[in-house]
């Protein structure tokens, strides 16, 4: 079957999370992603894991998660010979993606202008922490630091606790989505005009764009958010919006809902006096505690059934493993697996969009460092003698399963 991005060839210099997640999304839609890694050690993310545990004893779950549907070629980017090879490859490539610190790749001769000189149709996308110049240009662009700088950490959790970062690489992931957004828009424009261009995204700007409704409120009303001292779910929101306890030590989330319906279902008419917007905001912590005292009288399932029947917006709060076993997740086929030469059978999350004519697919596991180097160079027209010489010089490494 067709794939939407079949025929799109990507030279992917990116590493860690932001760039690799972006190119994986393009690969899921059929693009040919050539992952250019450091000869020998490869992408830095291969050395990173949770709990100090490894899949199949040696493979990083973090790396496996963001590098399916790619082929790896491992090259010494400082070698002149390698530079000539990559520029040759660039002639038939459509997109270059990179997320080194600003200026690093250009110094090695792989900047936008270098590629544009050999292929003016090329789309060159750079990702960075804070943009390519300015007072923060040399700061480390790691995810949690940027969550903190952008305001999301200060906006999460309770007023009487430390600020809380998200338990996911959020700034990186949003940066990845912005790369996809920019690259696909540029490809669409190139189809019409034949012209390439340079795209720049950065984690800080991406994170801010996701806080737009918070910023529109703060910047225009001149009031900053103060985190609630209860389980209210957002510092700008009124009760009952929040996370409530149940009799079986579970939690139920309750979103914006008519308060009267809620206290009626909870059989708590004594809450009626709080039922106006002003009070639900100004006394939200007090209301939260009173509602929480009522939800604790019900088991999670019973409470959910009652609330859903009354069309109250509510749901369970699941941990990661229970979320994966959720009947709806199963119904959608969202958890799948692939076989990896060292990691064994690796369970992964399937692509998140369904397209009737050009479905996303998982065709390959995450590659070993330089696993496809020979095959890729042969496709680009290099002779087996040239390829062997490159390996002999140590300018290319190949890790075969």
């Amino acid at each position, binding site marked *: 079957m067709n794939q939407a*991005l079949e*025929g799109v060839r990507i030279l992917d210099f990116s590493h860690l999370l932001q760039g690799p997640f972006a190119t994986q999304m393009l690969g899921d839609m059929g693009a040919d992603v050539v992952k250019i890694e450091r000869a020998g050690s490869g992408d830095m993310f291969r050395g990173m*894991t*949770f*709990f100090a*545990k490894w899949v199949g004893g040696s493979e990083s779950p973090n790396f496996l998660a963001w590098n399916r549907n790619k082929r790896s070629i491992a090259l010494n980017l400082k070698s002149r010979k390698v530079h000539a090879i990559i520029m040759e490859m660039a002639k038939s490539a459509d997109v270059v993606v990179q997320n080194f610190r600003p200026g690093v790749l250009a110094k090695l001769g792989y900047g936008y202008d270098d590629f544009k000189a050999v292929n003016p149709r090329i789309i060159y996308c750079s990702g960075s922490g804070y943009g390519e110049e300015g007072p923060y240009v040399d700061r480390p662009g790691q995810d*949690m*630091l940027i969550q*903190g*700088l*952008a*305001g999301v950490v200060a906006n999460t959790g*309770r007023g009487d606790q*430390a*600020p*809380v970062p*998200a*338990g996911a690489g*959020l700034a990186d992931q949003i940066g990845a989505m*912005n790369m996809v*957004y920019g690259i*696909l828009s540029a490809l*669409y424009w190139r189809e019409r005009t034949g*012209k390439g261009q*340079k*795209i720049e995204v*950065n984690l800080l700007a991406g994170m*801010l*764009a996701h806080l737009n*409704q*918070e*910023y*529109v409120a*703060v*910047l225009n009303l001149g009031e900053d*958010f103060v985190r609630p001292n209860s389980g209210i779910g*957002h510092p700008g929101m*009124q009760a009952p919006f929040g996370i409530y306890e149940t009799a079986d030590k579970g939690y139920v*989330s*309750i979103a*914006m809902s008519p308060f009267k319906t809620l206290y009626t279902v909870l059989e708590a008419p004594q809450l009626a006096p709080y039922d106006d917007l002003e009070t639900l905001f100004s006394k939200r912590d007090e209301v939260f505690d009173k509602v929480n005292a009522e939800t604790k009288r019900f088991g999670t399932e019973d409470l959910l059934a009652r609330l859903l029947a009354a069309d109250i*917006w*509510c749901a*369970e*709060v*699941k941990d990661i*493993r229970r979320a*994966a076993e959720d*009947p709806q997740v199963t*119904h*959608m086929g969202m*958890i799948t697996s692939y076989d990896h030469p060292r990691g064994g*059978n690796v*369970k*992964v*999350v399937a692509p*998140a*969009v*369904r397209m009737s*004519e050009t479905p996303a697919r998982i065709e390959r596991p995450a590659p070993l460092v330089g696993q496809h180097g020979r095959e890729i160079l042969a496709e680009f027209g290099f002779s087996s003698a040239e390829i062997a010489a490159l390996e002999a010089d140590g300018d290319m490494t190949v890790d075969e399963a």
Partner: protein
Amino acid sequence: MSALDHLTVLDFSHLLAGPLATQMMGDLGADIIKVERVGEGDLYRRLPPFFNTRINGESPHFLAWNRNKRSLALDLKSAEARKIILEMAGKVDVVVENFRPGVMERLGLGYEHLAAVNPAIVYCSSSGYGASGPMSSRPGQDLLLQGISGFMSVTGSKDGRPTPLGISLADQLCSYHIVYAVLAALIHRMKTGRGQRIEVDMLRACLAHQGQELLFALTLGKSFERPASGIAHPGMPAPFGVYRTADGWMTISMNPVDRLAEVLDLPELASCSAQRLWDERDQVHALIEEKTATATTTHWVESLLAAGLWAGEINSLQDVASLEQAEHLGAFASYEHPTAGTVRTVNIPVDLSETPGEIRRPAPRVGEHSREVLAAFGFDDEAVGAWIEAGVVGDLEGHSTQT
């Protein structure tokens, strides 16, 4: 010049997930026709806003996600409105909708109906939990999805309750998947002339963004437990986390502990093995925090950065608004809105060298562009006047009597 000009999107979406997606397309030049309910418009205009406060009567939530759109107010339940839409469908490229599953079909405006008129149409439906399955009719609100998808369980500390993020994350991730799929489908259509149907939902979008946590939990069969201290991720060792300083808070990311120990003057930290950084992460966190609490955030961030270590401030939103780097990036912009006045907003976060994004219009008022849009699609003045009279089409006057 914009990357997506010549592209017309008929946008039936409301609340957040759909509107952010179409705003992103509008930012890069697409013509977004926002189809709203006559009179009251998008539900997001009416939901209680943050602080229970509006900007001269306008909802900050709505203003945030609806720039670069024109509003066409229609009574979608009327037969005339359906005829208008089917006629317009022949001339648009993309449809986006995020009603609960089945609503558009019942209105006679499902993919099959529109594809019959325009087979090249790219039709994207977005929902909370997908179009079918045991949860498909559940409310698909952001907070609920953050809980269902496991996000909340990995955020915050062990002794606290599960913590939702202070942004509408599930909605926003879904927005990005809408943009991703619609643009990929448009590229495919340019080559083949064929449209298609796209389905996106908040649940899958949230799972896709937990790719590394889920891969780990499922493949190794291990659950995440939130740390008891300020360690920032349940799978991470010390020092990765949030630390108290003499005047506030700061972040310290992955760092070689020997060098960190040097800057903090904490010899005990220097000898921590990788295993101890994991096994005793909460104790190590306490050890470091005892030190960071003795000086200011500025002092520590400057010293750590100077030593090449990864650390940063934790800003409030007001702090960020005056951040030099944000200013340098042009991260904030403002526009004039006819009732809200000057609105300050976050700018477009991607820079395209040849086709920069642009804020061309403020968020519309309900039905503000009904006449203009319908005229552009070839409907004559008289017919439009009669529809307004009958309440099939809403315009600004209709809106002003409602609020």
